[in-house]
């Protein structure tokens, strides 16, 4: 009797441990997201952009005041022509504590473009006016483009 009882208890314990191991792990939503470089490649393949310049991390520090410690990924391109304000700016913050800071700095960049263009480049002013700094989890973006809706859709479907 004791042997049967011990055997049953052992089997029961086996089941308990097995069920712990089988607890499904929730998949992070980031696992589904494409790297920002691939999102940029998708944008470039589907949208006709003007000639653009890619910024380096040093440029991000110098121009935007956004330091490498604040983000885990970035992809930033601006129009080569100084008279056009087309921009593709994407960041993935290192963690939630950096999201607001990056958003604030991108808003400063956007406001600067509005100030510059308001009085002498009305078409560019309209373009920048339609843009907005968007936050989705750890992702912060600023797209300035006549194809804003299409670019937003590509990005939203990629994360």
């Amino acid at each position, binding site marked *: 009797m004791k042997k049967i009882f011990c055997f049953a208890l052992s089997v029961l314990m086996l089941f308990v441990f097995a069920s712990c191991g089988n607890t499904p792990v929730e998949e992070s939503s980031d696992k589904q997201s494409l790297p920002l470089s691939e999102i940029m490649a998708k944008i470039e393949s589907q949208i006709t952009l003007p000639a653009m310049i890619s910024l380096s991390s040093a*440029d991000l520090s110098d121009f935007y005041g956004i330091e490498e410690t604040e983000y885990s990924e970035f992809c930033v391109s*601006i129009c080569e*022509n100084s008279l056009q304000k087309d921009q593709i700016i994407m960041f993935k913050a290192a963690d939630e504590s950096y999201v607001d800071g990056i958003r604030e700095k991108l808003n400063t*960049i956007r406001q600067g473009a509005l100030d510059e263009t308001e009085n*002498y480049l009305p078409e560019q002013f309209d373009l920048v006016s339609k843009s907005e700094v968007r936050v989705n989890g750890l992702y912060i973006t600023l797209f300035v483009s006549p194809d804003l809706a299409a670019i937003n859709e590509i990005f939203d479907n990629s994360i």
Partner: protein
Amino acid sequence: MKIAKLAVTALAVSVLFSACNINRIDNTVTSETETTVVPTTAETTTETTTNPPVETETETTEKIETEAHTDEEVSSAETQTGTTATDNPFRIDTNLLDDLRDMLTLSRPDKPSPDFFNDAVFVGDSVTLGLKNRAVSERNKGNEFLGEAQFLCAGSLNYYSAASSLSNSYAIHPTYKGQKVTVPEGIKKSGAEKVFIMLGMNDFSGSATEVWQSNINKTFDKILELSPDVTIYVQSVTPIANGYEYGKFTNENIAVFNNYLASVCKERGFYYIDINSVLADETGYLNKSYCGDLGSGGMGIHMSYPGTDAWADYLENTFCR
């Protein structure tokens, strides 16, 4: 009853529109607490102004006349700038230019040195933004371009804005590391020891002469107040391409402006770099191969990559030789 409601609604809407009609025209009121001379809004808008100020008697008498030149002056000018003094009707006073060129020659290193620009900051408007973009593009490919020079630029930037505080809502200010700053503050924050400044394209055609002259001097005063040890290199305003002049926005007025800049440099001991001549064709207009905004909607003043390359090449290899 419905008609009465409709009438009341219409009245309320019309009252609302009247209250919201914000008039930004008058910015000469004394709400501006600085002593900076404040132009009217019509004067601050350059490229789109439809009502340029009436040319004053002072301005008409300041037009530069072409002088007879000695062979030595012509030869010197050709060596330095690639243009001839007699061909370009928009050149500044040649004697003044020669004096300033002598000062500049004494200041520069013996051999080309991109490192010369490592502690430099370039201040400018959308024309210099083109130089900045070229620098970013080239440096990110691993190529040298003006050493590690920094840039403090904004489209529409002018001497009026550079002399203004951040509280002046009519002024344009550049950003430094993501923060809006005044030009003098940005120079100080950058830690630069050399300041290459090119402003004026958004000053001369929209402001009266005494206004932009005052703003030029106030800008230099404020730069030196915050950064007394910097060396200032004033770059002349670049030319307009043929066919793109209008109203007061002319190469002749650029020459008047540059002449004044040169005289300030001589008086205050700043260096003067005649970039205007470097980028002009033989008739004094912006060389069209250097211009990146020709055609419909273009302004005829911004540089193409060959233009920015010629500019940088002059600074690195001629100025710094």
